[in-house]
């Protein structure tokens, strides 16, 4: 493509014809309820191709965010096809090459897409066996496959390789009866081969969306309002234009500075003088909770059983509390980045996104071009955690590429990342519960505002209970939140687990019963009992009455079909108010484990990340202005925080593989709060448990 020179005036005219789309609409979010496994193609050729050399390429609409999707999917493919893992290459998140997918979130890659992918590979293998049978003149039942070569069992000389059978073509044969392997036959699943993305990542060769280099590439920096909803009133770009090589594009509120170098575009951006107008909204991080409770939409009943009034009459001890958590940022280390090029009416966008196929539709709508003229390529993504389900940066890059006719790259700086993040919503949970004369839970009334209803319904055995949920991280009435909120690793479950497990612990303390024993008395599900036992034995849990002064805590959760129990030991500096988590044990039953090392990475990473929302992470804001702009004020976990971590994976290969990327994080808030109570006899009701809050709580006693 030949870059065309465009003068500023022309750009403005072109821009003038352009229709603005408000940012809020562009920030489409993960649907709160996932549709059933639909929309995947039925032709197995969509998922795999076998080269003449026997190398296998797998195709999936999932993306590699660091969670190991590339490795786990390659394992599934290699296992079902009976080819060596090393011979498999995965292509992910390319809308032109890969089968449609809804997006990479909800720990669905192995749990939901995995069976589809496995089935495709199994059918391909069955088809190849039939083809080999005809070619070799040997019945299928007398054939075996090893390393991509089909042989007659009794006469291994008679053999044909996958590569020869396919000869570089599509496989036209279909087999309706193909079945996937039974767990006993696994050779690659359940092992931990070297990660597919490893070599590129340790050599710096791994390409992320901001690393794409194209001839004539311009970097764009975009003028941002000081607050959400602000309108541009005055603009003076004359100083910015003095920097050689700068181009300025304006379209209403959308003003971008383009330059071949990011830092010089940024320098020019800082020279723009702009005045914005916006309405003051009387909200901040301290009064937000009251506002949420007052303005949340009417609740829906998540679950109801027995009769609360009856339960309340039976109760001898009643306990009521309100739990709070602030807005939390995703803060992936890679900021939102994208590179776009328009060529002959076709646009190609490399984007750091969790939702390439939805993005493709959004780009088509934004540029007003047919969807088939849009290709989204997802290179490696530098962390997502739900925050890259929204891909505003890619629409900005595409728009600017269309306006300028040049390839354009958008790499947000850290302040933009904090400003446009789709935060985990601030939330409030109110719980009332009671124990009867035998110290059994008799009623439970749970009301969650704004977090969402996932895992709001508790799993302890309580005869009279009700769970209500109002609002969530999906769609919200305008004005409820001062900025956009969205899914954050294990959406709604961190909030609901913090509240539930804190309250269960408080009830155990009231009852004077060891908190593990108290939970056991109310747990029927054998899988949950088993993980709790496994955690207790690894941790060396000693039965006690709360508070014991030792500073140990426990928390249990169920999410995405995965069972988890966590125990932790903490230390508190009463002068500084700082909590230090010394040791964490996490036991997890996630059914079939595709890659135990991959699961452990997720468990360790989830615990570390969880310490952030438990101890320091909260977004400070005034009205619709976000005050945190970088890692100096928004503090995320670092090396010095490292507790000793021990992980236990329960062997349960007969149960289907469930999610493992999100469940490890959900207990961290509660386990620390419970350990804090055990150490001090004081309960903390608000996340994060910052030094200030700790000191305040301790001062009250």
């Amino acid at each position: 493509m030949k870059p065309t020179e465009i003068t500023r005036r022309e750009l403005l005219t072109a821009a003038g014809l352009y229709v603005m789309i408000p940012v809020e609409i562009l920030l489409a979010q993960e649907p709160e309820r996932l549709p059933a496994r639909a929309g995947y193609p039925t032709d197995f050729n969509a998922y795999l191709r076998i080269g003449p050399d026997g190398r296998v390429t797998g195709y999936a609409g999932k993306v590699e965010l660091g969670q190991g999707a590339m490795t786990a999917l390659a394992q599934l493919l290699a296992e079902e096809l009976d080819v060596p893992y090393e011979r498999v290459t995965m292509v992910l998140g390319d809308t032109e090459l890969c089968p449609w997918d809804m997006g990479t979130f909800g720990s669905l890659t192995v749990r939901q897409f995995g069976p589809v992918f496995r089935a495709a590979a199994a059918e391909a293998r069955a088809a190849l066996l039939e083809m080999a049978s005809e070619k070799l003149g040997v019945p299928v039942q007398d054939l075996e496959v090893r390393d991509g070569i089909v042989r007659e069992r009794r006469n291994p000389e008679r053999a044909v390789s996958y590569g020869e059978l396919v000869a570089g073509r599509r496989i036209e044969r279909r087999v309706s009866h193909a079945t996937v392997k039974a767990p006993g036959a696994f050779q690659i699943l359940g092992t931990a081969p070297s990660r597919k993305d490893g070599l590129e990542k340790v050599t710096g060769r791994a390409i992320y969306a901001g690393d794409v280099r194209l001839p004539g590439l311009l970097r764009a920096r975009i003028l941002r309002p000081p607050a959400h909803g602000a309108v541009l009133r005055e603009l003076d770009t004359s100083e910015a234009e003095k920097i050689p090589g700068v181009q300025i594009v304006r379209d209403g509120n959308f003003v971008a500075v383009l330059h071949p170098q990011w830092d010089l575009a940024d320098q020019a951006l800082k020279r723009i003088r702009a005045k914005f107008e916006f309405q003051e909204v009387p909200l901040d991080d301290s009064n937000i909770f009251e506002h949420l409770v007052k303005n949340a939409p009417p609740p829906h009943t998540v679950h109801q059983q027995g009769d609360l009034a009856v339960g309340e009459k039976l109760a001898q001890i009643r306990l009521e509390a309100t739990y709070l958590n602030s807005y939390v940022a995703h803060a992936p280390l890679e900021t939102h980045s994208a590179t776009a090029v328009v060529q002959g009416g076709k646009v190609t966008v490399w984007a750091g996104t969790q939702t390439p196929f939805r993005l493709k539709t959004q780009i088509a709508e934004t540029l007003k071009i047919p969807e088939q003229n849009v290709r989204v390529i997802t290179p490696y993504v530098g962390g997502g955690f739900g925050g890259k389900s929204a891909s505003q940066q890619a629409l900005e890059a595409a728009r600017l590429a269309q306006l300028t006719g040049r390839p354009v790259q958008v790499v947000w700086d850290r302040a933009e990342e904090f400003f446009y993040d789709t935060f985990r919503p601030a939330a409030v949970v109110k719980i009332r519960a009671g124990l009867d004369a035998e110290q059994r839970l008799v009623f439970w009334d749970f009301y969650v505002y704004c977090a969402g209803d996932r895992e709001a319904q508790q799993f302890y055995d309580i005869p009279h209970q009700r769970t209500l949920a109002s609002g969530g991280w999906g769609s919200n009435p305008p004005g409820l939140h001062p900025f956009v909120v969205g899914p954050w690793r294990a959406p709604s479950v961190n909030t609901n687990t913090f509240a539930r497990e804190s309250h269960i612990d408080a009830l155990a303390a009231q009852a004077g019963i060891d908190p593990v024993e108290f939970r056991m008395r109310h747990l029927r599900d054998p899988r949950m009992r088993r993980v709790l036992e496994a955690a207790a034995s690894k941790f060396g849990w000693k039965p006690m009455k709360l508070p014991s002064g030792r500073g140990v805590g426990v928390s249990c959760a169920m999410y995405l079909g995965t069972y988890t129990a966590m125990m932790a030991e903490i230390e508190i500096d009463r002068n500084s108010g700082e909590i230090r988590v010394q040791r964490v044990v996490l036991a997890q039953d996630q059914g079939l484990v595709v890659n135990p090392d991959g699961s452990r990475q997720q468990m360790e990473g989830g615990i570390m990340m969880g310490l952030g929302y438990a101890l320091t992470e909260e977004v400070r804001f005034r009205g619709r202005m976000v005050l945190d702009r970088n890692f100096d004020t928004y503090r995320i976990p670092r090396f010095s925080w490292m507790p000793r971590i021990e992980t236990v994976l329960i062997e349960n290969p007969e149960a289907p593989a469930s999610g493992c990327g999100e469940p490890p994080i959900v207990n961290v808030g509660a386990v620390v709060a419970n350990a804090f109570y055990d150490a001090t006899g004081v309960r903390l009701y608000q996340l994060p448990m910052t030094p200030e809050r700790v000191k305040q709580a301790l001062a009250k006693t």
Partner: protein
Amino acid sequence: MVRTIRLTINGRTHEIETDDQRALLWVLREDLNLTGTKFGCGMGLCGACTVIVDRQAVRSCTTPVSAAAGKHVLTIEGLATDGQLHPLQQAFLERHAFQCGFCTPGMIMNAYGLLLQSPNPTRQEILDAMEGNLCRCGSYHRIVDAIEEAAARLRGGKQQ
């Protein structure tokens, strides 16, 4: 001030005509297409942009290119020699001391700087030296293990 700056990057000498106050990070990424060095915060707060300048680990986002003039710069792209991974890279790879990998070049280069200064660090020294490098994916434990292992291998002199 725009001037010609001469510096050696990964063993090759470059002459770049540029504003000498520009951050080394952007000269590496945008002018020289060395994209292994990452931008994470731009304010010296995350370590993703760490490179070695004359045997010292520095944050290239806050280092003006003028400060590297006449010096030797080593980036992640220059760490492997003759197709042989450096022991740090090898240990990160084997221990899966990364997830998304975005912090990885900075982690490896910062650790490289540490091992230049202190070939036999204690675990606490490793933690202290790495404190300014952030990993949102939480690979911290594996990173420390990988650095310890690489340090041991380097001392064993199996590879250099």
